[in-house]
Structures are given as C-alpha cells and as structure tokens.
C-alpha cells in the first residue's frame, strides 16, 4: 500500500498583499475586495529572485533523509498544474535530479490535471513502486515533487476565485511504509469545460461543488470510511467561501477543514495538500490511526476533481 514517508514544503519568505497585484493584473478595487473580504485571500508568496529549479531544490533540501536514501529512489514524479513552464528543451526536473544525485531514477512530469496533478502523481508513483523490485539498498522509493512559479497571468490568479502563491513540496513515497498510508483515491474529470468542450464558465460554477462532493464521497467509499470518521480534511486553498459552502453541502463541520493557510498563503498550485499536511503535523492535529482526506480541484481548461483518503 502506497505510503508517504516524509514531506517537505518550501514557501518564499516574501509576502505580497493582494492589493499589490491589482495594478500589474489590471484588477479593479472591487475584485481586490472580493479576494480579501469574500474569499479570505489577503496575501501570497512570490519571489522573483528564485527560479523554478530553486523552488524544487529548496523543497527537496527539507527532506533530511533523502541523501541517505537516494540510491533507493527509483522514480521522481513531478506533479505540475501548468503543462509547459519553460521553453523546450529547458528541463528543471532533470536539473534537480542531477543536483540531488538522482540521475539513476526515472524522472518525468505528470500534468494536465491542473492543480489536481499532484494527487495523480502520488497515485502513479505508488503504482510504479508496487511493481518495482527491491533495490540492493532496500525497498524502492519515489520522490514526488510539486512547485510552480507565477510566471504568467493564468498562473497568478483565477478571476473572481483565487490567487496563486509560488511554492514547492517534496515527499518520499514507499510501497509499504506505515506513516501515512493511502487508503483510496478518486478522480473525476470534466473535459467539457475545456476551450473546445463548449460548456460555459457559469455552468462550471454550478457543478463545481457537487462534483467535488461526489468525488469526496467516492474516495470515502473506496476507503471504507465515512465523513464523520475523518479527523481532518486538507483542502485545496482556493478560497474560504468555496469550503464554507462545500461543508454545508456535504454536512462537514467547517472546523474539521484545515483552512489556516488560505488567508496568508493562497493557492499554492499542486502543493496545497503538502502545505496543509505540514501545518497539520506542526499543530499536532493528526494522531496515529487518524484518517484524513485530501481534496484537490484542477480548474484550468477542463476540470479535474480529486480526493485521497489517508491513514496517519
């Protein structure tokens, strides 16, 4: 069973108030107020001095066990929201692998599920590990990376919905670890909301919460658990209002959703799950045996709704 053995997160220190985004993005005062007052999004993290490679390496550097375990790392899977983030053939993933001494690992990017790509990356890495024989140094491991720069307009904000923070994460996965075991994964894609799919943004707004509720329910069913048995929900940091409304829809007490990072960090692309996991651990919110759910929505062109249930 796939398990997360270690998690590291990097967020730039530099904080940018949402008001500062107004001029460069051409946002009106009303739009800024919507972010701050309605959605609870007050600031994001951005650092123009840090490259994408820098972000990924800083997250990996937080995995203190990695240098000793690197020869067991067979796969490096980079879950990324934006499909193309550098000109071809610039390849930050392989730069990171070389720097970390992981040139022996199979490294690739998994994308086109927008901000839900990280959960698919965990699922895929787990399946690859399950089929992989032991290394001479022990059971194989996978390194799952996330990390993005707010390099273009679409990567800076989602109109009327969210603002993005730069950041990154790194986690070590094994096929048989015992720390955070993956019990179930569910994913539902709605490609009709692509530019060629013909569906309207207004309809997307209407299906958003019911679709997320459905995929959460499916993940819970597969895990053989219920909403009431969950200790915690680690959300995507899209905004506060979405989660307040979703909680009402599915009957989940809002206090069981870890929303601490929405206000001060915003939406860290694919890294939200790991940012929130770190906070949950720092606050001592997860005890051995606790079950928790991770939710993600990829809402670029096309939409992907995903949820995972773990046991800590």
């Amino acid at each position, binding site marked *: 069973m796939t398990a997360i053995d270690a998690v590291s997160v990097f967020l730039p220190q530099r904080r940018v108030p949402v008001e500062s985004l107004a001029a460069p993005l051409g946002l009106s005062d009303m739009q800024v107020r919507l972010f701050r007052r309605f959605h609870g999004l007050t600031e994001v993290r951005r650092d123009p001095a840090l490259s994408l490679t820098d972000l990924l390496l800083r997250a990996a550097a937080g995995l203190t066990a990695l240098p000793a375990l690197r020869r067991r790392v067979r796969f490096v899977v980079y879950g990324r929201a934006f499909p193309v983030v550098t000109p071809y053939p610039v390849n930050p993933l392989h730069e990171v692998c070389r720097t970390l001494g992981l040139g022996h690992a199979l490294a*690739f990017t998994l994308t086109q599920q927008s901000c839900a790509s990280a959960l698919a990356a965990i699922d895929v890495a787990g399946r690859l590990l399950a089929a992989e024989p032991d290394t001479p140094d022990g059971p194989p491991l996978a390194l799952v990376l996330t990390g993005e720069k707010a390099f273009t307009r679409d990567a800076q904000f989602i109109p009327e919905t969210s603002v993005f923070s730069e950041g990154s994460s790194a986690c070590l996965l094994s096929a048989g670890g015992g720390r955070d075991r993956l019990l179930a994964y569910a994913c539902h894609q709605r*490609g009709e909301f692509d530019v060629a799919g013909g569906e309207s943004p207004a309809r997307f707004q209407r299906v958003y919460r019911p679709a997320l509720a459905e995929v959460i329910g499916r993940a819970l069913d597969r895990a053989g658990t219920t909403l009431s048995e969950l200790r915690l929900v680690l959300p995507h940091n899209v905004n506060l209002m979405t989660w307040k409304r979703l909680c009402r829809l599915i009957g989940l007490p809002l206090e069981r959703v870890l929303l601490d990072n929405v206000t001060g960090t915003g939406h860290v692309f694919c890294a939200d799950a790991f940012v929130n996991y770190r906070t949950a651990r720092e606050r001592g919110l997860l005890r051995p045996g606790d079950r928790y759910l991770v939710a993600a929505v990829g809402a670029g062109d096309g939409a992907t709704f995903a949820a995972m249930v773990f046991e800590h």
Partner: protein
Amino acid sequence: MDDGLHLLRAARRTVTGPAALLGDPVLRERTAGYLADLTRPYGLRIPDGLFDAPPGTLGQSYGEMAAELIPVVVPPDEPVDLLVLTFAVHDMLPGRATAAYLSHVCPGGPMSFALCDQGSAAAFTGLRIARGYGCRRALLVTVEQAVLPYDAVVPVPARHRAVAMLYGTGTGTGTGTGDGARVTALRQHAGVRADDVAALAAAEVRELTTGRGDAAVVLGADLAAAWPGPGGDAVTTGPQRQPSTGVWWALLDRLAADAARPRPVVAADYEPGLGYLSVVALEPVSRSEPVGERGAHERAQPLVRLRGADGDPDPGAG
C-alpha cells in the same frame, strides 16, 4: 488467463492542415501572452508577426491531433479506463489541460493525464504506468509538432505526427479483432551515457530475443545511430527527426508487414538528451498457432490493426 496488456489497435497520422483552435483570435492572443511570459526569462524571442500568420503556419494543437485518432481506435462500446498523452516538444496551446479534454471525447471518460519532460522515454513510461493500472483498456497517445514558436536553437521534429495505441487485457475486450500483441517486457534505464547505450541496448535485445531467431527489432533513430547489432531485414529503423513518435511509427510498420506471419518484436529507443534507454517486447498472441490454422482471410489481417489513413503526403520518406 492472460492478464497482461496487449496492443490491440493503433492509428497514426501526419498532420498537414491548420489547427482549428488557432483560428480563434482570443486563443491566439492568450497563447501569444503565455509564450511571451514563458520565453522572456530565458532571453528567447518570439518572431515578430508570428501570431498574425495564418493558422496553418503557426503550429498544432495536440488536442486536435489526438482527438482525431481516438474514434479510429476506440469504438463507442469499448470504454477506456486510462488515457495517457505524452509529448516532448509542446504544442501551440501550452497552457491547456489537453488530457482532461481528451477524457471528455474518449469512450469511457477515462482517467487522463499527460507525461512530459522525459523526451522519447515518456511514451514507454506511459505504457509502464498503464500496466500498473490493471485496467481493461488504456489509450496511449504520443504527439509531436514540427515547430517551436521561439528562436531556441534545437532540432525540432520533421513533421507534425501523432500515434495512438489502444492497449487492453487479452481476453474479454470485445474487440472482435483477436488478442493483438501481448506486452511481455518493458524495461527502462536511466542515466545511460551515449558511450554505453550501444552495449546496453544490445544486451537487452539479446536477452529478450534469446531462442527467438525470428524476432524482429525496431529501433528509434537515435538508438539506431549507435546500434551495434545485426541489421538486415530483422531490424526496422524509425524515421529520422521524429523523436517522440518515430519508434512507435516504425513498430506499427513492422507489425503490419508481419501480418501474415506474426513474430515477436522488440522495440527500443534512446533519449540522448536525458539518458534514458527504453525497451518493450511484444509477442503475437496467436504465435503458437500452427501455420495453416489461420485461414487465408485471417492471415491477411494484422494481429494489431493499424487503422485509418496515415495522411502522410510523403509516406516513402518514413
């Protein structure tokens, strides 16, 4: 019961026409902005007037290239569970979640994602992932376009090409086309230096063809350049300057050519920029049938059906 994946059907296409989506001025403007932001930190330049050019000269949409092949290989009554899109060179809609769209137009509404940043190894990785999913059917689509919209000094593919391959479990797939060619081995090596790839590839092919004197070998062009093994009719080489689709294009040629007398095939490719050697072995399922048990009309049919016209204006050039 054989629960491994079989290559059941395939289709491929050389695209010569314009991408319809790039005729949309809103999308063109959005793409222009995205590409400007993408290239600026790297000091690359987008040619002046690029986005004033007719769509036919601008480049391709991988969504359109793949969507055209899906109905050719996937009948509506054969739902797919997993769709993997792979590419190295990006298309002209680089911010688009194309795989999510393809899920919408593929029977079964499969789980879908794209793999990239791995050069020619990505399609092999996609097949490896499909094996791990244990699904009834998986659709693997690999795509490449022949242009880059900025002045990067790197080789680009010779043509816009796409290959779609439907893989499924060997029994109960309801294809009515036989059980195709079973994937019997799939191996990938990382960190392979150019000086070492010839010996490693030869050793892999030798091991996978031991005792199979009739086995065919298909090599991507980058591996063929280093290939130390025997040549002749047993070796098929992929077309030059088609790094993502070439080996699969040649594999389909080989399977089609061997339709009357199917034989094992080992296909391999080397990604020189990133150091990956990938090898896949396929075994025709009906190979053990004594010759003569297949009727003449059956022998005329390939075990793996290559469907649809290539649409290649110059097929002889590979």
